[in-house]
């Protein structure tokens, strides 16, 4: 007997929904094996990693704080991937947005008006868009591979941030620490409830709702899917591939930029050399795990936020490196992509018996 893949006639909707669930289950099983190999009790370790963070109010708030940028970036990336545009540089656009939005509170700390915050947000969005415009331009104009250009721009943005907070933007009263000055209240996103949760979460919800409607109901959403699945048919429909590249990059860049400035002004309140634990990259997993569907991304964003919290908890409680977070995220992406094969193919047990059945 052997396993074989047989192409399905149509794609399976059930499998499209089941695939992330199967992937999650496989990740948990692999995780349990991993913990066991590390000499931990697997059940306890998984509890610490995935359940405990959900038991306290502060950690639930923390979950939302971490899910916010993942979701904002993830829904933008979903539009890219659906339209067959491969923006891998969410992290760079996130950083560029944070930098652009921080110009006001850092260089003009005395500009404290009701307009400060909206202006900052707009500048953040513009920063992310500008950063994303570079690979879009290179692709449309010269046919450059956007995977490479958008990825390389991540490192440029990260180094730019590093240089700024160590150099020109360092807090003059900061005892030479590589940090910018702390944002004034007028430049800080208001908190929700009384904890760390901030208004950025609402932006994420709005983005999810808006994109869900656009993708499922609008002609634009149709255009995105057609160009992604069959570029030639897209051209026949009168849709422009180049315009779509611009649209996808600017939209995802803008959302990543919004995530960047929201994180900085809502959660960190200053610029530091590291402002993200890799949200822009994790958002790629979020997008795929969420079926490139905004509603799905809402859930997968929360799940991957949980993996960050779980990693921290495991480090504290079990003394395991918080790199386990990355391992879990990696396994999850790996399994989702593998399980996605089942959407278009079914597994068949091949063997002599297969056609031997009577007529």
């Amino acid at each position, binding site marked *: 007997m052997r396993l*074989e893949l*047989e192409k399905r*006639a*149509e*794609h399976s909707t059930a499998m499209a929904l089941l695939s992330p669930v199967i992937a999650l289950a496989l990740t948990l099983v692999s995780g349990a094996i991993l913990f066991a190999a590390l000499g931990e009790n697997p059940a306890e370790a998984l509890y610490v990693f995935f359940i405990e963070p959900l038991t306290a109010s502060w950690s639930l708030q923390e979950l939302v704080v971490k899910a916010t940028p993942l979701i904002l970036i993830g829904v933008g990336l979903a539009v890219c991937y659906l339209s067959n545009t491969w923006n891998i540089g969410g992290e760079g656009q996130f950083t560029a947005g944070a930098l652009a939005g921080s110009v006001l509170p850092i260089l003009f700390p005395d500009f404290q008006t009701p307009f400060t915050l909206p202006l900052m947000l707009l500048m953040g969005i513009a920063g992310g868009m500008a950063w994303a415009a570079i690979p879009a331009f290179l692709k449309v104009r010269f046919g450059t591979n956007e995977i490479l250009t958008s990825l390389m721009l991540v490192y440029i943005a990260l180094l730019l941030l590093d240089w700024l907070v160590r150099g020109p933007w360092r807090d003059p009263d900061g005892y030479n620490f590589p940090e910018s000055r702390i944002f004034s209240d007028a430049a800080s996103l208001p908190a929700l409830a009384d904890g760390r949760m901030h208004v950025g979460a609402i932006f994420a919800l709005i983005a999810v709702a808006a994109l869900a409607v656009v993708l499922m*109901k*609008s*002609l*634009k*959403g*149709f255009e995105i*899917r*057609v160009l992604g*699945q*069959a570029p*030639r*048919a897209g*051209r*026949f*429909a*009168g849709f422009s591939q180049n315009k779509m590249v611009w649209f996808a990059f600017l939209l995802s860049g803008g959302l990543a930029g919004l995530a960047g400035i929201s994180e900085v002004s809502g959660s960190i309140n200053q610029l530091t050399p590291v402002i993200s634990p890799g949200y822009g990259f994790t958002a790629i997993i979020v997008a795929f795990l969420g079926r490139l569907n905004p509603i799905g991304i809402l859930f997968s964003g929360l799940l991957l936020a949980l993996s960050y919290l779980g990693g921290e908890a495991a480090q504290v409680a079990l003394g395991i490196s918080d790199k386990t977070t990355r391992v879990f995220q990696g396994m999850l992406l790996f399994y989702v992509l593998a399980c996605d094969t089942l959407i278009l193919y079914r597994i*068949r047990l*091949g*063997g*002599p018996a*297969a*056609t*031997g*059945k*009577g*007529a």
Partner: protein
Amino acid sequence: MTATTPTDPPATGRERQGEILLEARGISKRFGEVLANDTVSLTLRAGEIHALLGENGAGKSTLVKILYGALEPNGGTLHWQGREVTIASPAEARQLGIGMVFQHFSLFEALTVAENIALALPKGTGMRELSARIREVSRDYGLTLDPEAIVADLPVGIRQRIEIVRCLLQEPRLIIMDEPTSVLTPQEADQLFLTLERLTSEGCAILYISHRLEEVKRICHHATVMRHGKVIAECDPAQETAASLARMMVGSAVHDLDRGPRPEAGAVRLELRGLSAPADGPFSVAIDNVDLKVRGGEIVAIAGIAGNGQGELFNLLSGERLSAPDAVQIDGQSAGRSSITARRRAGAAFVPEERLGHGAVPGLRLSENIVLTRHSTGDGLVRGGFVDRDRAGQLEQRLKNNFDVRMSHDDAEARALSGGNLQKFVIGRELDRRPGVLVVNQPTWGVDAGAAALIRQELIDLSRQGSAVLVISQDLDEIFEIADRIAVISRGRMSDAEPAEAMTRERIGLLMGGMDEGQGGATHAA
């Protein structure tokens, strides 16, 4: 004609000799609610060209995919040279000596001809050696091919050659061909028949699916006819007429076309003025100074051998490629720089040659595929930027009924339709708009006799209502059946369109070969 039960031996016609190569007994295959094959039995003998006939959706492709291991049957057995076998994959079929040329090609567009062929062969063949063998086989069988060419740049006719050569390279005992000639020119088809004759004389068996009954009569030794998934008759096609074969397939007589009286010449609705465009790829053809007027009320056909600029001309007409502003005129308005959407709004409609991936998105439902070309043409499919799904569903139902598009369940994805049914859909989608100008490339590729008559009649009716219809086709029978005037395209240049009555096959043949060029514009004299 003799109706048989699956176990009966064929009763009429020539004595069938030759060793039995492959026997299928009681094969069944179900797709959802549709029984695509219902206890089908079939015997294929060495040295025999065996025709498999049936209307669109009868289950022919399904059956041969099962024989080739590409689909698993729900029941029944296969016997290869008397031994029961399981053919679980195409690789296993190839090992037994079964080769196949698919209806929808399975080629990787970004790869070269040689690379595509290498993928189907056992590993370890050197590319240089392979290229040499491709050249040799393609020369031997008269199927010229450049192993270095990139598939994306090649027209459909040549792509099919690749599939045939790929198949021949494996020296198969049985070759299955799913509608091989539907995209070939008469000359190419004749060449293929020589190849087939040679193969059968070498003891090869051939299973041949075609909707062209004349050619079936001419070359096939035996025929099995399917309807609604069942074998309903076997016969010797040489003893039948095309009409009697068609009747067997459809179950009723196929109507002759009604061309009606030729209307008075209307206004020019589509005009090309010195349309030129450079080749846009290493294997594409430059369009050179094409002039053409199509008037309301008439059908003009462009004949030509595949790869002489038909695809390029189509793209320039549709607006997928732009040209000089005045070079394309729709109802007297310059449209050369208008987008395809603007041209559609101006009343034009287009049907490309390649239905999957160009005319339709394989993974989208039919209702969504209607939105593909009609989102901006005032059909109420899009309101305020939002797609009206109910309206799309209504249109889908209407098309399904008016054009007899059959599928296994409602509003299926385009890729699940049989070839002919999808063709009916992509044509119906445009005809349903009653466009003022219709440009269609290969209107009846892979469509059964009944449906082809339906489509041709619709084209005629559309023109008689005052629309200008331009048909690009390689099927001369079709052209003579429907065209009022005929032009011939050869290497990107087009002859003047002349009245169909004044055209003969010989003359078209000469023009196809570009023979007029030496005569100092003698074609313009007609």
